[in-house]
């Protein structure tokens, strides 16, 4: 009787496990089926490297390079801002901050992670956008850099919490060894703790960047949404994600445009997948 119960429970759990895999496979197949259809009308090269995205002109031009560049610019900008601040913050929390302050900071970081992206986008729209406009004397503040700044805030909690974890799990005996050799606090952090935690920190950065690339709402609200080749970080851009979100509603099902949006979905999927796998490799390298 007991054995039977055990085996039923085991089967149920197995089913739950399989279900998640099953749905992932279904979603992936659907994405492939719809997305690959775009290549009936346009070559892979023209799709990825085409410089104009005019999906509803006649004939439709479906080059997504401006969108890739848009995502790329926003992501690079966000990375440049969030990596030093995020890693610095993680070092401060893990190594330097007194206990009380540490707890307060950690709560703060968690709160930052809890802000819905649409709210961040909204705040960015009324604060950062006018600021960027007036600082750089631009006709509009809806630019790649505004998106970068806002997304940096979203990447930060991921980077800080995972990097802090990595730093914290550096064995205490390494630090003692360094101190016993006469190293100062900073020398110990810089020469022992950081190298020991390096793979975890890289993983933290990758996951933070993954979050940025996949983000949709905030970028749609503050990057200007112009699907043209950006010539600088101060120009309006449109990201891959924002394109899908903005256009899927009005694309005719089964049209070239519709398939192209799914094609973008595949590109996004591949990018995020690569980033997550890299992060995972780094995270488990030392185990």
């Amino acid at each position: 009787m007991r054995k039977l119960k055990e085996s039923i429970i085991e089967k149920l759990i197995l089913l739950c496990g399989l279900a998640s895999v099953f749905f992932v496979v279904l979603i992936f197949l659907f994405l492939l089926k719809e997305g690959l259809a775009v290549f009936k009308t346009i070559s892979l090269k023209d799709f990825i490297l085409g410089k104009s995205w005019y999906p509803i002109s006649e004939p439709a031009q479906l080059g997504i390079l401006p969108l890739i560049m848009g995502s790329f610019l926003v992501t690079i900008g966000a990375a440049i801002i969030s990596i030093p601040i995020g890693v610095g913050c993680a070092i401060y929390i893990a190594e330097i901050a007194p206990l009380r302050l540490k707890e307060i900071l950690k709560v703060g970081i968690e709160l930052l992670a809890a802000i819905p992206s649409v709210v961040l986008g909204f705040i960015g729209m009324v604060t950062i956008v006018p600021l960027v406009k007036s600082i750089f004397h631009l006709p509009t503040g809806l630019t790649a850099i505004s998106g970068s700044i806002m997304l940096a805030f979203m990447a930060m909690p991921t980077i800080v919490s995972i990097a802090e974890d990595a730093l914290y799990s550096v064995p205490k005996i390494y630090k003692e060894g360094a101190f016993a050799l006469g190293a100062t606090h900073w020398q110990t952090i810089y020469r022992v703790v950081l190298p020991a935690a390096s793979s975890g920190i890289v993983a933290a950065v990758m996951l933070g960047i993954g979050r940025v690339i996949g983000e949709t709402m905030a970028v749609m609200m503050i990057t200007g949404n112009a699907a043209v080749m950006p010539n600088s970080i101060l120009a309006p851009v449109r990201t891959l994600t924002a394109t899908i979100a903005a256009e899927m509603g009005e694309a005719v099902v089964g049209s070239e445009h519709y398939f192209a949006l799914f094609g973008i979905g595949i590109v996004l999927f591949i990018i995020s997948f690569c980033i997550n796998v890299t992060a995972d490799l780094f995270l488990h390298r030392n185990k």
Partner: protein
Amino acid sequence: MISAKIAIKNLNLWYSDFQALKNVNTTFVANKISAMIGPSGCGKSTLLRTFDRMNDLIEGVRVDGQILIDQENIFDPKMDLVKLRKKVGMVFQRPNPFPLSIYENIVFGERIHKSNLKRDQLDESVEISLKSVLLWEELKDKLKKPALRLSLEQKQRLCIARLIAVKPEVLLMDEPCSALDPQATARIEELMRELKNKYTIIIVTHNMQQAARVSDDTGFMLLGELIEFGHTQEIFTAPKDKRTEDYITGRYG
């Protein structure tokens, strides 16, 4: 005693409210191995960690009294901790090479203490340090390999080599063999005997046989007090204090 390398005077230490060391007085002589023995929690590791002020890292530690190393009080507010820890090196219970290459582990001390080092200076110091712990032949072709891949005994030797590279005068060893098997332990003890010609060695051990085998002087500690300190042979054959006798004959501990 004239050649006292380290003199402890009326040393008391508290962890918050708990008094871990009670009025300890003794001297350690240069070029000898002194062993500190006693049941766990008796304060022997705490005592060891006061010599290079590693206890400073623990919150709520309070010390009074003096430790004079070469006639210099290490608790003097003007004491340069970096200088102290260069002079007084420590080997830990669990071998703790840094997650760097073997080479970088050894030159770590020089890198943090000196600037613009020449490559051949570093190479030379790696060779000297590894030779002095008898690892050179084994490792000379593997210097770029990660230190964490070494065996436990090699790691512990490497940690000693890493200390030797910063030219200390005192070596503190906190149960340096407790993670090692008996053969490796015997070889590390052999190494200690060799090193004592150049250094003042203080070893903390819970292993009485080890203290008897390797040390010249032995101190017995109990509940934060140094009960007795003297020549190892006397401590083990004719202890003056009843409590020492009880401990070494295995009545408690």
